[in-house]
């Protein structure tokens, strides 16, 4: 049954990648990449049980943490056009200032 779960996860990863390539807007790509990252966590967990050596679960946990932070960073970059400024200014002035 682990093989079935692995195949299902790989299939979904392929679909998420397809959406990442097809996605018209950048936010489709962000959502697809985030779904892909979560599936990587699952793939590591299921693969550990497939080979019977549950040593890589720490990596899966760390990857889940990093994927979340990475996603928020990309969103902040896309939303504000820049990562370094204070986030409480309204977006419109920030956009004019950037141009």
């Amino acid at each position, binding site marked *: 049954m682990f093989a079935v779960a692995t195949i299902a996860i790989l299939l979904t990863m392929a679909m998420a990648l397809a*959406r990442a390539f097809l996605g018209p807007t950048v936010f489709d790509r962000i959502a697809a990449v985030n*779904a892909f990252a979560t599936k990587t966590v699952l793939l590591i967990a299921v693969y550990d049980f497939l080979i019977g050596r549950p040593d890589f679960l720490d990596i899966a*946990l760390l990857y889940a943490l990093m994927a979340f932070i990475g996603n928020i960073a990309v969103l902040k970059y896309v939303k504000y056009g820049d990562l370094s400024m204070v986030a409480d200014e309204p977006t419109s002035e920030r956009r004019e200032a950037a141009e």
Partner: protein
Amino acid sequence: MELVADIVSWALLGAGSVFIVIGGIGLLRMPDFFTRLHPAGITDTMGAGLILLGLIVQAGFSLVSLKLLLIMAFLFITSPTTTHTTARAALAAGLKPLLAPEADRKDG
């Protein structure tokens, strides 16, 4: 006892796989960005939850299942947060959701 744990974990893994594939198909088929967030959420919470639960039942009472529980708890917290922030960022960037055409809208 071992057989029962196997059967339960296989059922959970199977259900989790079904949900994950449904989420994947939904990710491709949905017409608009905001509707695509829903299947992405399905795979994150339901699919991942059932699969990890199946693995926990398989791993029994050990450190491994503690790690799996931590992963599951973390995914349940961050996945909705990520979906929420993505939707907010999209709205702030001016991406309008695909509403029904003006003619057949119920609420006028």
